[in-house]
């Protein structure tokens, strides 16, 4: 096992070969009657819990979702690898919407306030969560951020997650939808390599499309891989630099925002 991060040799493949890990027989589960001692004269007993490890995160997420709903807020969880152009895309989106919508941003990064600064330069309120060593935002972190910011009433809250295609997939933040960003400078097979994230996302923004003429990236292949993992995923080809696809993305936002407003109490 890797001693720096604990990743297990049992699940690691090099050149398609499983690396030998710990030996020994797998643990067998023997159900016991709850509350009964294991053996005679043994001071131990069995406590049956059957509790979901993510239940606490789920409870915070439900509270966040309730807060968004009662304020008519469309909350989106933006997820991608580092360097996919999430922040650039977000800046362009905010500039397009800021005169007509109430907007706010929560930025998640391990370190630095750089992304929040880029957002604030557009005039939109941004709050930075630094996760330290953490590799994802969780619903409790978002709840804490929400308490410290002005809520975008009947508007849109963008939550830019830590750049990571693995860990954020498991953590519901209370968002209406996860929006995955994949850029043309990455590999087409990322949806297959990180299927949890592309399964969890409702929309895929294929970013940096202005670079397609200079790359060997097969965009149709990337789209077919994403649909293999998630046949219902909506895909928009976009470029934060040239503005291609921005109209379609803004229309998607508007349609979903109307949906959020409809659910808000009058």
């Amino acid at each position, binding site marked *: *096992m890797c001693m720096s*991060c*604990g*990743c*297990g*040799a*049992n*699940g690691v493949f090099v050149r398609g070969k499983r690396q030998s*890990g*710990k030996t020994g027989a*797998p*643990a067998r*589960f023997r*159900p*016991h009657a*709850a509350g009964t001692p*294991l053996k005679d004269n043994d*001071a*131990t*007993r*069995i*406590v*049956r*819990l*059957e*509790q*979901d*490890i*993510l*239940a*606490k*995160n789920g409870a915070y997420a439900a509270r966040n979702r309730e807060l968004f709903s009662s304020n008519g807020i469309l909350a989106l969880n933006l997820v991608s690898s580092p360097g996919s152009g999430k922040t650039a895309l977000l800046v362009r989106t905010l500039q397009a919407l800021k005169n007509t919508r109430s907007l706010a941003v929560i930025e998640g990064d391990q370190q630095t306030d750089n992304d929040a600064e880029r957002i604030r330069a557009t005039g939109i309120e941004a709050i930075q969560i630094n996760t330290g060593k*953490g*590799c*994802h935002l*969780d619903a409790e972190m978002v709840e804490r951020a929400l308490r410290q910011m002005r809520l975008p009433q009947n508007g849109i809250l963008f939550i830019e997650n830590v750049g990571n295609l*693995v*860990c954020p*997939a*498991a*953590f519901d933040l209370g968002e209406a939808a996860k929006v995955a960003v994949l850029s043309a400078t990455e590999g087409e097979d990322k*949806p*297959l390599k990180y*299927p*949890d994230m592309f*399964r969890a996302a409702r929309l895929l923004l294929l970013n940096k499309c202005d670079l397609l003429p200079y790359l060997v990236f097969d965009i149709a292949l990337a789209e077919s*891989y994403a*649909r*293999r*993992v*998630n*046949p*219902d995923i909506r895909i928009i080809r976009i470029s934060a630099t040239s503005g291609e696809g921005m109209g379609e993305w803004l229309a998607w936002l508007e349609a979903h925002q109307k949906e959020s407003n409809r659910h808000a109490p009058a």
Partner: protein
Amino acid sequence: MHEMSLAESALQIIEDAAINQGFTRVRTVWLEIGKLSCVEKDAMSFCFDAVIKDTVADGARLEILETAGQGRCARCGHEMQINTLYEACLQCGSYGMQVVAGDAMRVKELEVE
């Protein structure tokens, strides 16, 4: 590595149970981890051993029960065992198997004293 925060969440469930059910030491922890949950079994063991130091579960043995993934085809309804989220249905060939089992992460049981 999200297994660290999942291990901390599991520990919190155990610590809450210690208060509610009146035990002071945990000898064994059984976790159920579905093959389709986004948890790497060995990473979980590593993180669990790290977070239980100086807690009610210090020194506890961790037993991870891996449960198989089960999917149902969204188009034809065929059910089959799946190991990934992008397997095609063996009956009709379409993608998008809906997960019906094997994505859980649960603290199942504890052996306590």
